[in-house]
């Protein structure tokens, strides 16, 4: 490190603005990606509330469903759905970066790792949807 002496008055340290993440689209996308975990947590809370309502019987469950139809909550859950999907997509797309798998000397392309994740996601979602909606 440079030690400031009388011969070197000082070097200039630019302060990083609190809004650094607005200065570039890439940084904004990053912050949104990180923020999406809040919405994932929200969905967990909703699911826990749903399970609790289920355990307490039909009356409580009907109340829970009524609560969910509140316009504010509908809006919140719509936004949350978007962010949860965003969270999953960014996660699947980034996962291959952490895994340098080599087959016969050549590194596997990203799609070979992200692809199966997407497929599994679609298949499992379809299975869950079928179970829930068929009745």
């Amino acid at each position, binding site marked *: 490190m440079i030690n400031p002496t009388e011969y*070197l008055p000082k070097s200039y340290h630019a302060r990083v603005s609190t809004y650094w993440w607005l200065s570039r689209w890439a*940084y904004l996308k*990053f912050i949104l990606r990180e923020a999406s975990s809040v919405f994932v947590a929200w969905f967990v809370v909703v699911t826990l509330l749903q399970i609790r309502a289920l355990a307490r019987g039909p009356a409580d469950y009907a109340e829970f469903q009524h609560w969910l139809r509140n316009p504010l909550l509908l809006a919140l859950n719509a936004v949350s759905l978007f962010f949860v999907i965003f969270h999953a997509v960014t996660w699947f797309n980034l996962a291959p970066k952490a895994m340098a798998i080599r087959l016969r000397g050549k590194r596997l392309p990203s799609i070979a790792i992200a692809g199966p994740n997407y497929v599994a996601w679609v298949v499992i979602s379809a299975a869950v949807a079928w179970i829930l909606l068929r009745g």
Partner: protein
Amino acid sequence: MANRITLEVTRYDPAHDEKPRLDAFEVPLRKEWVVLDALNYIKDHLDGSLSFRWSCRMGVCGSCGMTVNGVPKLTCATFLSDYAPGPVRVEPMRNFPVLRDLVVDTSDFLVKLSKSKPWIIRKVEKPLDEEYFQTPEQLDAYKQFSMCINCMLCYAACPVYGLDPLFSGPAAIALAQRYNLDSRDEGASDRLDILSQHDGIWGCTFVGECTQVCPKNVDPAGAIQQYKLTATMEWVKSLVLPRGASSE
């Protein structure tokens, strides 16, 4: 295409200035010129007191990293005509203290680099008449990470480094990983002890901008995430097999 373009260049002389300002210069716009040629034109013909670093002018020495229109770039590999009609803003690299004009203090990187122990570590050295056999596949395992020219554009792009100067940073970690993956090296656990601390690999939140700006496709973000995976595996192994767990 017009034949002139304006450059707005950061000026800062600590002896006189409280903080940096921008000076505007009009320079010729030639199709084969890079931004560095424009800076040299300013220095040679308009204002000799403009200070900046450069050397090889072919993208291999890593001296000329600056911020061009907000993006970290090597000015010797950035064509002026891409910014026509201009103006082009040329500022010093972000996240480093500015010493003078476009020159920043990069000594922190060298400290971080040394901490990564970027050399072959072996328990027993081979004698000089014996070769380390290394197949092309083994070379490929680390080759990409060995291409780092130490230009530090990745540090300029990394918001974590900007907010926390103690963070080891992309290049230092990528170079550690380069040696970890080198089949001749036996020092991965030494490096892990240092880099698995809070300001090492775990400081990284995978913004990924370092990889975006890297002029040599080193992919430091990839190196760090792979390193995190390895570190986690080592930790799990140490829990599950507490004795004799270390494979390195």
